[in-house]
């Protein structure tokens, strides 16, 4: 059983925040989370967040949309009830393909976009009725926060680094007990 100190390092700007993150990581301190009022580009590698896999999801959803729409159009327009629209060929899918391209494109984008948004919301558990998880509401307005969970020895080091890099406040928010994993 390990007891860890919760530390909130509050900053007024994103530049010292990024600087502080880099120095904390260089000192071997794991950053639990960072809260910012707006997206800060290029923060992921500095904080040490692994590369997002959302892009892979988007690709899979896109392929799904492409395949489903192709299947749907083939079934409706060619297989089940061949339609003669403006005398266009309807004996196989290939010969009428220009007509199917726009729908294929739209279905691909539709599935990729909706799948991506839903995956993101579910992964972050931003479902209806979910409780807000930001520990300090000021991070939704004009403050930036580094959230740390550290043991006593590391806390001291982190405190120094945070203050040295221009943290406006370093708040101690009690302790958390972490069950060891066997």
């Amino acid at each position: 059983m390990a007891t860890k100190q919760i530390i909130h390092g509050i900053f007024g700007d994103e530049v010292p925040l990024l600087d502080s993150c880099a120095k904390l990581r260089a000192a071997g301190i794991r950053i639990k989370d960072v809260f910012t009022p707006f997206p800060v580009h290029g923060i992921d590698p500095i904080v040490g967040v692994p590369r997002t896999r959302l892009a892979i999801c988007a690709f899979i959803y896109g392929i799904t949309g492409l395949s489903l729409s192709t299947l749907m159009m083939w079934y409706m327009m060619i297989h089940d009830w061949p339609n003669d629209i403006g005398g266009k060929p309807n004996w196989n899918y290939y010969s009428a393909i220009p007509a199917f391209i726009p729908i294929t494109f739209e279905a691909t984008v539709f599935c990729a976009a909706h799948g991506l948004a839903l995956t993101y919301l579910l992964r972050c558990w931003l479902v209806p009725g979910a409780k807000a998880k930001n520990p300090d509401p000021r991070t939704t307005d004009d403050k930036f926060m580094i959230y740390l969970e550290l043991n006593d020895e590391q806390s001291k080091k982190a405190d120094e680094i945070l203050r040295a890099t221009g943290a406006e406040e370093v708040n101690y928010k009690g302790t958390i007990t972490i069950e060891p994993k066997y």
Partner: protein
Amino acid sequence: MNTDKLNFVVPAKAKMTSFILMAVGLVSIICMFIFDKQPDDHHYHATRAWANVFAGSFFFMAIALGASFFLGLQYAAEAGWATTIKRVIEAVTWYLPVGLSFMLLIFILGQLQMHTIYPWMAQGIATEGSENYDAVIAAKIGYFGIFWWIRTLLYMAAWILFTWKLRQNSVDADALGHEEAKGFHWKNVKLSAWFMVVFAVTSSTSAWDWIMSIDTHWFSTMMGWYIFSGMWVSAMITVTILVVWLKKLGYLEFVTESTVHDIGKWMFAISFLWTYLYFSQFMLIWYADIPEEVVYFQTRWESYKALMWTVLFVNFAFPMIMLMSRDSKRNYFFLIFVGVIIFIGHYLDIIMVVMPGTIGHHWTGISWMEIGNFLFFLGVFIYVVLTNLSKRPLMVKNHPFLEESAHHSY
């Protein structure tokens, strides 16, 4: 900052290359006019040679025009990120007067009956009883002739004037102090807003007048946008290649990786705009199947099939696959590699637009004529752009967004 790297000096090798390209190209063009004959067709007078010269003139002129448009767009949108590469874009726009001179020369020679690129320029085309009489063209001859010439001269004057003024304001601003120079930026913002309006109309109408009137019987409302998207993407490729090349030579150290990434994105994105318009034009005509419209693609389908598929693959599938990921847009080798290939792809696109309406079924595939002619215009383009690039410092001094652009990163 390394100040001696602020002024670009044209490397002797680059200058030499441009001269060699021009020399090789010029020899090919001369040979082209001598050897280009079709003995069994008495309407054919070195038509392919003329069509090639026209395609080369138009393609490189369009790159300069696309760069002009992009420069104006950055001002009108008050975008900051591209400020550090503004001088590179300006250098590309400076080919515009040269390119337009080539165009004007071809138009004048056409009016003097030297070539037959434009069927409506033929003598007696609207006179009943003449051997050249064409009832369809006669019905819309009011749009051609003197009216066409007035429009052509107006486009040229307007584009050169706007481009020249945009650049002049920026140069004037650099000569002043930081505070006094502020007014020049707002002048350029206003000027660009007008330029965008003028360009929106003239880019479409010039494409009808100069490109679509090669196939005088045919018409398409997508043509203006299609040609415009092609010129825009070619301009973005040119700017990307130039910026990466200059960075490799050690210039432009104030241009951040994110700026390079962003022009890579433009190259990627406008490739899709081009594909979208190309396909839309094709699909609507294919679907409606109206004889007077479909004739355009019939010629291409019968005699230019390989070229048609190459253009679609090179300009759509290739950049899509190669430039999709973030890393490839930040990789100099990838940007140059993909850029060079789709640059050639868009030249082939212009060839495909020009050739069927001029030489029709005489097409035999890409030959030394297309290549030699392309090299000549490429040589002139490289020479003009690099010379203009060396005339001014590579960085603007008094642009209000300069700081923002120099710190552009994400």
